[in-house]
Every structure is written in C-alpha cells, then in structure tokens.
C-alpha cells in the first residue's frame, strides 16, 4: 500500500514537470512521423533531374524516366543545385537535360545529356534506367538516322516512315516474376518497423534519463526521511520502481495507441503486444533503478542515460534492423542480443511478421523478465547499502 503512495508521489512530480510531457509523449510520436515519412517509404535509389529547357521532348523524357521501375525521380531547379546534391550524396545521380535538347534532336544533331554520379558502381542501375528511357524516346530519330546511313532515304523520309512503322510493331517486353517469399521485415508498413524500434528505444531511454529523479530524491534528503518512517527499505524501493514502471508503461501505451490511430501501425495480437509492453516497462524501470543506485549526481546520470539509452538501442537493432546485422555482420547480430532491445524486437517479429500470439512471444518475454530481475535485484542490493551507510 505504501509502495503505491510512493509511486503516486513519483508520478505526481513527473507530471508536474511539463518538459517530461514533451519527452515522453510528443517527441517519440514526432520522430516516428518524421522517420516514417522520410525513410519509411521506398528505398529505391533517387535520380535528380534538371531540365534546362521546357520543350516537349525534354518533358517527355522526364515522364519516361518516371515510368521506369526501381528508381525515384526528383526534380531540381538548377544545375548547380543538382550537382551539389549529388556530391553530398543526397541523391544517387543527377541527369542534366540541356536547353537545346528539343532543338538539337529535331535538327538531327547529336545531343549530349550529362549524368552526374559520384562513382560508376553506385549508379549502375540508374544508368541502365536512363539509357532505356533515352532509347525509348529517341527510337524514331535514331531509326531515321539509320535510314539515312543505309542510303534508303533522307533523314526527313526516315522520320515519317519510322513514326508510321513504329505504330505497327509491338515493343519487346520484359516481364518480371517474383520468386520466393518476401522477407518479413520488408513486408512491414511504412511506419511499422520504425514504430517498434522507437517504442523500445524510448521506453528504455526515458526510463534511464528519469533515473535522475531517484538521485534527486536521495540528494534532497527525502530518501533518508522515508527510511526514518516505519516503512521497510524494500517497500520504498518497490514504490520508487513502481513509479518508474508506470511512467514507462504509460509512454509505451501512448506510443502504441498513438501510432495505431495516426499511422495505422500493425502491432499484432493485442494481448501479445500488451505483454511485451509490460515486460519491457519492467526492464526499463529496472535499468532506471540500477542507474539511480549507481550515481549520485543527476547530471552525470543524465549524460550516461543518453549514452546507454541510445547506444544500447543502436546495438540492439533499433536503428539498423537486426536482419541487416544478420546478413552483413553476423558478429554484431550476436552482440545485439546482449541488449534487451533485440529480444523485444524479436518478440514483436513473432507477433507482427510471424502473425503469432502471446504464446509465441513467451520465450522472449522470459529472457526480458530475466533482465528486469537482474536489474532490480542489483539496484535493491546497492540502494539498501547506500541508504543506510
């Protein structure tokens, strides 16, 4: 009962500090929105296009480029801007369509189109796409040049005949058949993957930075005053932990419900998702208690909280998906599983990708509970010592 009183006062103090509302509620949602909008969509390479003129042919080329599969087209207003953007690696390649594109082609001259690239290898796919768009557009002109070269007629004759002939001859086509099953991770919606990762990242990060409150309680002398009351040290620590737990849980629920409503994020089986949430809130609050027991300066704990909060999340696959670790760096994949985050993500995989139920998450939840138990036990052992010596 007293533990609830202590947890309650924790919550009250937490809510009273308005900046906490920002960190716990506003910021995560904002970040998921931005990350999802910016990086969650297609990962196809981008081709920047600058049209110096405004002719029909150059416009037509852009349309053809946009129809190409496996790349995105981004328009640019100036050549310098486009080149600078390519140099900075913000688009993979830049196509510069000259001002005399239409005039040159119509006059049968050879026109030079520049493709700005940083390295030939990076732009392989894009160059192929640009080449086929050019071939498609200039087919008739090139055929006319062929007619002239073969001596079958003038360039003008060639244009007429080729245009008419082209109508009757079907294009040679390419059909793409997908083989094998798509990797689960890539079936996730635009916001799904980042929402899972951010959920775990933030629950843990906020807990760690909130450990400053525990340190404050100690520094203010209030912790000693609590020990002087007829309240077992165990109850005081459970109360403090409970306060942190409720905050982490509230944040988790908020992110989950918020992203479900706003971005329609798929969290899988609701019971399973709730179970992950509760267990991970235990892990986070346990880590907060441990942190609060180890440091006596809240500013130090704040800095280290950010270090561990972001660092463990990065290692644990919240910034780069675990599947990428698995493929590119198997050692890192193993290291990732030292962090609770990786197990949390695996639990979500079991729910969302494998379409499992809470039963399928149990092995992961068990491991996470292990983390929580270790954190809490160490924290209580350490705090008991700190508070009575």
């Amino acid at each position, binding site marked *: 009962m*007293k533990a609830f*009183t*202590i947890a309650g*006062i924790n919550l*009250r*103090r937490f809510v*009273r*500090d308005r900046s906490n509302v920002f960190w716990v509620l506003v910021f995560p949602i904002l970040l998921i929105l931005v990350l999802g909008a910016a990086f969650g969509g297609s990962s196809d390479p981008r081709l920047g296009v600058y049209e110096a003129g405004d002719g029909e042919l150059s416009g037509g080329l852009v349309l053809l480029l946009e129809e190409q599969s496996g790349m995105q087209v981004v328009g640019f207003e100036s050549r310098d801007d486009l080149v600078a953007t390519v140099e900075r690696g913000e688009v993979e390649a830049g196509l510069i369509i000259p001002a005399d594109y239409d005039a040159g082609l119509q006059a049968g001259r050879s026109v030079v189109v520049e493709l700005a690239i940083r390295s030939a290898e990076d732009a392989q796919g894009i160059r192929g796409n640009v080449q086929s768009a050019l071939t498609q557009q200039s087919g008739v002109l090139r055929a006319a040049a062929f007619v002239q070269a073969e001596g079958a007629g003038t360039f003008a004759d060639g244009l007429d005949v080729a245009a008419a002939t082209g109508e009757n001859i079907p294009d040679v086509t390419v059909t793409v058949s997908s083989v094998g099953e798509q990797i689960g991770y890539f079936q996730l919606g635009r916001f799904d993957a980042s929402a899972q990762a951010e959920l775990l990242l933030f629950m843990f990060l906020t807990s760690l930075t909130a450990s400053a409150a525990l340190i404050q309680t100690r520094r*203010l*002398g*209030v912790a*000693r*005053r*609590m*020990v*002087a*009351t*007829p*309240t*077992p*040290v165990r109850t005081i620590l459970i109360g403090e932990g409970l306060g942190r737990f409720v905050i982490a849980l509230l944040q988790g629920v908020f992110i989950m419900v918020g992203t479900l409503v706003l971005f329609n994020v798929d969290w899988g089986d609701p019971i399973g998702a709730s179970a992950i949430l509760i267990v991970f809130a235990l892990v986070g609050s346990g880590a907060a208690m441990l942190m609060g027991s180890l440091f006596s300066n809240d500013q130090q704990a704040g800095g280290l909280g950010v270090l561990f909060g972001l660092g463990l999340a990065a290692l644990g696959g919240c910034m780069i998906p675990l599947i990428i670790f698995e493929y590119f760096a198997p050692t890192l994949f193993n290291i990732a599983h030292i962090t609770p985050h990786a197990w949390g993500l695996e639990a979500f995989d079991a729910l969302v990708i494998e379409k499992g139920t809470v039963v399928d998450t149990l092995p992961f939840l068990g491991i996470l509970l292990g983390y929580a138990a270790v954190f809490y036990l160490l924290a209580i052992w350490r705090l008991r010592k700190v*508070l*009575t*010596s």
Partner: protein
Amino acid sequence: MDSRASVLECRDLKKSYGDNAAVKGVGFHIAEGETYGLLGPNGAGKTTTISMVTGLLERDSGEVFVNGLPLTTTSIDAKREIGLVPQDLAIYPDLTARENLIFFGKLYEMSGSDLKKRVDEVLEIIGLTDRAGDRTEEYSGGMKRRLNIGLGLLHQPRLLLLDEPTVGVDPQSRNAILESVEQLSGEGMAVLYTTHYMEEAERLCDRVGIIDLGEIKAEGTRRELVQLVGQHDRIRLQATGPCAAGVEALASLAAVREAGVRDGGIEMLVDNADRWLAEILGKVSGAGVGISSVDVEEPNLESVFLHLTGRALRD
C-alpha cells in the same frame, strides 16, 4: 535514573568510517516529557549519533530501544514512535507543503480525515496555513525550515529528534522553533535536541550531554555540570579609589578566590555569588573603594565545555 518511563535508551553506540571513529561508545536515555540536549561543536558526532538512533545508519555496535522496542535499520515498530527533523532540509521542492505533509503522513500510516485534520493542525503550528498550496521551492528559507520541522511532528511521535534545527534560521523563526519545542515537551513528548548553541541547550534542555570527538564527556542538568567541574561565579566591580586595599580586605573571606585589580576595577572568582555578594561589597567599600557598578557572571555550559575539552564550542 529518572522515575519516569524511559522513551529512548541507547547504549554503547559505535560507528567508524574506515580508520576514523566518528562515535566511540555513546549512551544516554531520555524520559517522557524530558528534553535532552547533545551539545558539541561541529563534527563532534551529533548527526552520526542521531542517525543511529533513528535507524538511518547501520551501527558498528551498541543498542537502541525506543519505548522498550529494539531499533535497527530494519525495525518498523520502533520507527513509528520517532519523529525526525533532519539537519538539512528534506522536503520535495516541487510539491506543496500540504502535499509533502500528506505524503509523509501516509508513510506513517495515517489516512483519511485523521490525516487531513492533523495536516491542518501542523500547518497551523508551523504557521504555513496560508501558503499550504504553494510549491515549497517558492518558500523563504525560514518557511522551508518550519515545514521541515512540521514533517517531524505530523504523526505525534513519542520521541522527537531535532538535529540542529536552528542552523541558518533568522532570529524570529528561531524563537518560534524554540517555543514550539518547549510546548511539545510540556505535552509529554521526549525530545532529543542536538545543537552547538550553548544558549539553546541552556534554555531548552532538562539534561545535557556534552559530546566531543565522538564521546560524551559529561552529562547532567546544567547545575550538575557546572558543579561537576567546580566552576565559580565571576564578579567584576567598576571601582575608584584604593583598589589594592579592597583586594587585601577580601583575603579574609574564604569563599573568594583569585581576587585582583584589573582595568580600573576589581575582579574575583567566588564559590557562590548569591550567598556572598553583600559581604563582598561591604568589605570592599569598607576599604575606601568607591563602587560604580557590579557585574556577576554565573558559570555557563560554554565554560564547562572549555574546561572539559580545553577548546571553545565554536572553533
């Protein structure tokens, strides 16, 4: 031993930090309605002692009984009887006074309308009724101190421990604090009061323990302590005329010791000034000395401390 029931009984308390022995075998007892003062300079071991008496600090050895109940860091029952006013403020700055009181009241197992009523009473006692709804970070230093004390009174403990409650407090608040301690003691509460202000110990405490370097050097009522070390009253006469003759005239009185001429007057130590003052004045004026003023200084705890330790209280 006092005939009244002993509320606090502690024996042979010891605590060392590494090689540094902070408290080396302190023991005392406090009866119901009694105010016991621990008087000693900063660093004498007062706070360490009080921390062991409240179960905040694991002691190396010794025993503490509160109301007959043994107390350790894990005791619950004994702690119920104690109210603690720590030396440093221990309040939540981001909560209001009322919220602070209600929170700790709940930890002392109070609830409902009893708690509410008692919180109002305490707010009245510490004079914070008007500001009860403001966050304590907005309070003045004296107001925070008063709340700090109020939190110790909240659950009407049998034993109140005040650790230097007047340090850094303005004279007005200080007086209010002293008055409320007197009142509480009058209501039967046992009080342990630590201070390095001699005047406070003299005013409040029924008995005083003089503590230095982790040991109680002497203990008793003020009078007992003064007699223990055989101190004398000091009489200073502003005088004109043949002072040397006056000093000679005093030689016949056995109660007068060490009389001498100083700064245009006569100074002496007397066994009991009340008893001998008239006779002394007679002898001196009989020798032809004109007396313009008389100053009698009774021995105080300051001089006792000086005698016992060879140091002043406030070094």
